[in-house]
């Protein structure tokens, strides 16, 4: 997701092609060609420009709705039904051959990763290794980060695990584990400083109450595509 302005000009994009299974778009204003995954113009008058990334989340609808009850949802476009909005689309794509292969790092080409860039470093976090009931911690370029899976067991957010310039450890509340059914509303994490945190990354009790952790943008991508655009990426391993 990008801000669609470059060199002070508002742009409108349309689908224009494909490059190693990542799509190319063009803007109506200048006809320049842009790579979707990098937000960079690769050809045309705006070549070399990069769009500013727009921080966003990938959440289940139920979780998003609980956080944003007054939000708006893109409606299905008239004339497009189940045939186009194919629920099995991702599974089907997974069967397609890949145009590039980087087998050396222990990942399969179509493994889904969350890519994070910080301080000039890129790291790929295999989704199935960071998604789970317990927060997953790591350090990128010296910055402590934590991957948190929401109460729906599907949505993942990344935060800088620092509060008050202190590195904090986030962990699951053992109390919640004992309850047979965890209600979304009760869901929270604990930290080493006596705070509780909700899935928005904000403290709901403790000395940090009312404050929020810095959110880190991550990109969900196939491993081969991430590696193609981040040749020096490392892979999370713990």
């Amino acid at each position, binding site marked *: *997701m*990008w*801000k*669609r*302005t470059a060199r002070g000009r508002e*742009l409108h*994009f*349309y*689908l*224009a*092609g*494909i*490059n*190693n*299974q990542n*799509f*190319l*778009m063009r803007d109506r204003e200048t006809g320049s*060609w842009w790579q*979707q995954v990098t937000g960079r113009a*690769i*050809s*045309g008058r705006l070549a070399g420009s990069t*769009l500013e990334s*727009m*921080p*966003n*989340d*990938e*959440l*289940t*609808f*139920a979780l*998003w*709705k609980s*956080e*944003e*009850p*007054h*939000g*708006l*949802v*893109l*409606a*299905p*476009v008239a*004339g*497009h039904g189940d045939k*186009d*909005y*194919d629920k099995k*689309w*991702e599974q089907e794509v997974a069967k*397609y*051959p890949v*145009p*590039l292969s980087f087998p050396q790092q222990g990942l399969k080409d179509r493994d889904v990763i969350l890519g994070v860039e910080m301080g000039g470093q890129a790291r790929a976090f295999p989704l199935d290794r960071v998604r789970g009931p317990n927060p997953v911690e790591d350090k990128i370029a010296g910055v402590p980060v934590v991957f948190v899976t929401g109460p*729906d067991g*599907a*949505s993942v957010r990344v935060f800088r695990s620092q509060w008050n310039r202190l590195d904090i450890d986030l962990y699951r509340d053992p109390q919640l584990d004992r309850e047979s059914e965890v209600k979304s509303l009760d869901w929270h994490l604990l930290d080493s400083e006596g705070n509780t945190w909700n899935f928005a990354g904000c403290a709901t009790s403790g000395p940090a109450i009312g404050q929020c952790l810095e959110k880190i943008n991550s990109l969900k991508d196939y491993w081969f595509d991430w590696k193609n655009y981040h040749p020096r990426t490392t892979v999370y391993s713990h």
Partner: protein
Amino acid sequence: MDKSEKLGLPVLLALLTIFSLLLFLIPAFVIRPFTHQSENGLRLAIAVKRIAPALTMVTLLGVLILSSRLWRSASRWLRTGIVTALTLSVASAAMVRQNYFEWMFHPIASAGFVSANDSHLGDQEMVMAVRIGQEARAYPILQMAYHHILNDTVAEVPIVVTY
């Protein structure tokens, strides 16, 4: 028409037609799904795509002039050739003006939105979510995986949602 013209003009006609076809086919061949695009291949394809709309018109004009010169004295075989050359040149000039990626994945001409409560989306469906200022929007991946691109404006910020 002298003898050299009699042989030369049909050859020129054929070459122009092939050239026109290549203006469509080279990018179509390079930028096809599920194959590897090399950097040079992609550069060539984009360069051809940029000049193709103008060049196919020039080529078509050339084909028209040659055809009209040749037609009167042309044999039945040559006339079949002329008609073929004209058809292919017109087709090529038309195709380079088409965006067949948008035939496959129709763009969202005007996006409609519903409130979170009115949406029929399943609870477990994934959405791309954004909040700017006081405005929050969710873009179901089910839809974005098909349309791929949505130009939107949230809290007066122009954004492009891509998936």
